[in-house]
């Protein structure tokens, strides 16, 4: 019986020597939080160094570390593996998503600087919340254990609740925050219960072993109709609820419009992009763990789940696009567009599950390559989605500072008063619709390609393709209303002309440029994403 002491020593050695260095970005962010809180104590330092500077420095350091880690992994100088005694995994996929999150953090902080939401005095609180949430999301991205599953989601969500309610005096944000807390807690509770059932049934909480145990459990119980498989199904479903809440998929999306309308545009941007990215990473990990190493283990169960995801995806996309028609508040409109895009990305995950589940059944069908195409599509879409959505929310935030309103009517005629800003908005909007010269089109195209390709495995994928195509056309309706207001309407008589300082339009250009470049020259990103995918699916 090893004594508690040796156990502790081994644990410390393991964390210090091996595990910690692999999670340097999270370390950097934690260090920044501590710095933020401490700096306030020393009065004079606080005057020179505003909080956003420290945050930016911390975020940039984290971004650098993530970047180097990803490159090392790709050129093999660093090995992927499980750390913290199997709780977290350090691999290409994790590194990519964490790099995405760090990059997004840098951009959002820059945005908050321009819009000046967290003013000087409560800057540190805001930024520490944001950093905390990002760390939680990074953990979600590299979770390898059901515990980390729950911890990551909670750590990402809880600071989010507070950030939503950050505008203390505002009635709407307090109401939104309260709704967000209650809804989030409820969903987390259901998820936790699901996790408990799943781990109990399979007897293990570590993700890599789930698949093996699942085949054993399903194998004994004799097929699908048995009690064990039912509980397994219920358990997986309840776990998915937690993720569905974070991804705002249809049955669990009710919080999204209200929260986005209540929260400030920057926070909404953060929630809509970062939490989606992390949640999708976690969903992919969870699905891969269910499928396990040898695909085609228990096809009916997994195809069932894959088709379930597909149905939810179709419903989400259609609902998101249709509900956005009648919106007058831009943030609420962008909320519904976020729901729609979540649906699009879920299509890729559903295709991934279906192809890995019984792709082998189709003769001469290259299963791993098709699966890699799905993951590559998802990752590229996330990468472009980051810029598109941030650009849209940024313009909304920047214009709010001038017109003090977020209704579409307030945008009337702005297009010709501050052309640079509005052209960036046009680029982002058309990319969200998915028109070719822009990145959004390429993301959708890769996903459509994988859907079409996997259509041979299961016909439902072609149905998804058609639904996706129709929704591209439907989505045009409400996105165009923003541009119509900006470019085609005359400004209201009394309204002050909207003069945007050049710094802001430069920021907008900084965001819009990658959207255009990704559309014209996607090769760099697609090959990176393909590398990551080839690692993820052997």
């Amino acid at each position, binding site marked *: 019986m090893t004594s508690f002491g040796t156990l502790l020593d081994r644990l410390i050695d393991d964390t210090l020597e091996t595990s910690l260095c692999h999670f340097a970005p999270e370390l950097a962010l934690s260090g920044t939080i501590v710095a933020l809180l401490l700096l306030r104590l020393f009065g004079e330092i606080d005057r020179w160094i505003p909080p956003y500077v420290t945050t930016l420095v911390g975020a940039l350091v984290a971004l650098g570390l993530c970047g180097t880690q990803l490159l090392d992994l790709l050129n093999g100088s660093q090995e992927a593996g499980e750390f913290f005694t199997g709780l977290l995994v350090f691999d290409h996929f994790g590194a990519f998503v964490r790099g995405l999150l760090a990059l997004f953090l840098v951009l959002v902080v820059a945005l908050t600087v321009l819009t000046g939401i967290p003013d000087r005095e409560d800057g540190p609180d805001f930024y520490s919340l944001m950093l905390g949430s990002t760390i939680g999301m990074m953990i979600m991205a590299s979770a390898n*254990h*059901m*515990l980390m599953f*729950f*911890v990551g989601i*909670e750590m990402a969500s*809880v600071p989010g*609740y*507070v950030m939503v*309610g950050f505008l*203390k*005096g*505002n*009635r*709407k944000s*307090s*109401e*939104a*925050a*309260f*709704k967000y*807390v*209650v809804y989030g*807690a*409820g969903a*987390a*509770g*259901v998820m*936790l*219960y699901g*996790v*408990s*059932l799943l*781990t*109990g049934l399979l*007897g*293990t*909480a*570590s993700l890599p072993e789930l698949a093996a145990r699942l085949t054993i459990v399903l194998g004994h119980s004799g097929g699908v109709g048995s009690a064990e498989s039912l509980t397994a199904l219920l358990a997986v479903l309840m776990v998915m609820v937690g993720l569905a809440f974070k991804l705002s998929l249809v049955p669990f999306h009710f919080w999204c*419009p*209200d929260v986005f*309308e*209540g929260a400030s545009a920057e926070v909404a941007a953060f929630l809509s992009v970062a939490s989606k990215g992390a949640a999708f990473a976690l969903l992919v990990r969870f699905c891969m763990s269910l499928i396990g190493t040898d695909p085609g283990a228990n096809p009916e169960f997994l195809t069932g789940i894959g088709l379930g995801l597909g149905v939810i995806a179709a419903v989400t996309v259609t609902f998101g696009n249709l509900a956005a028609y*009648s*919106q007058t508040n831009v943030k*609420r409109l962008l909320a519904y567009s976020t729901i729609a895009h979540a649906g699009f990305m879920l299509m890729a995950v559903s295709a991934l599950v279906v192809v890995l589940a019984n792709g082998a059944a189709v003769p001469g069908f290259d299963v791993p390559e098709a699966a890699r195409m799905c993951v590559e599509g998802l990752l590229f879409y996330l990468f472009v989605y980051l810029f598109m959505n941030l650009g849209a929310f940024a313009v909304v935030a920047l214009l709010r500072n001038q017109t003090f309103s977020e209704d579409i009517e307030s945008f009337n005629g702005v297009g010709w008063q501050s052309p640079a800003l509005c052209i960036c908005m046009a680029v982002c909007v058309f990319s969200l619709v998915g028109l070719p010269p822009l990145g959004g089109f390429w993301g959708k195209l890769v996903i459509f390609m994988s859907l079409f390709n996997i259509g041979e495995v299961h016909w439902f994928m072609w149905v998804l393709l058609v639904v996706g195509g129709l929704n591209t056309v439907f989505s045009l309706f409400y996105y165009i209303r923003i541009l119509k207001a900006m470019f085609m309407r005359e400004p209201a008589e009394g309204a002050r002309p909207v003069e945007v300082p050049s710094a802001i339009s430069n920021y907008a250009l900084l965001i819009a440029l990658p959207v255009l470049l990704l559309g014209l020259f996607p090769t760099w990103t697609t090959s990176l994403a393909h590398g990551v995918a080839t690692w993820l699916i052997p």
Partner: protein
Amino acid sequence: MDAVSLNYVLAIGAVLFVCGVICMTTKRNGIGILMGVELVLNGANLNFVAFSRYTSLGLDGQVVSLFVIVLAAAEAAVALAIALNFYNNHLTIDVDRGDELHG
């Protein structure tokens, strides 16, 4: 053989879970809803502990339940702060009155 087998404990956990959910959906008072949240989390906790005892889950179950308790506490603190802020702005804690954001 000890009297209490796994199913009984699971039953209690399920009951706790269902009570928590019902409490969340029916209570009009904000704080009441938060209590419901706690019940749901504790129900899951009970499951974890039961599984670590009866199945091959082992210590993981207990470690998870520890974490759950910690996180539940954090969440409760945050939730109460937000509830307070909600009260300050709406001068009521009645949840149904907070429906300005809709449509």
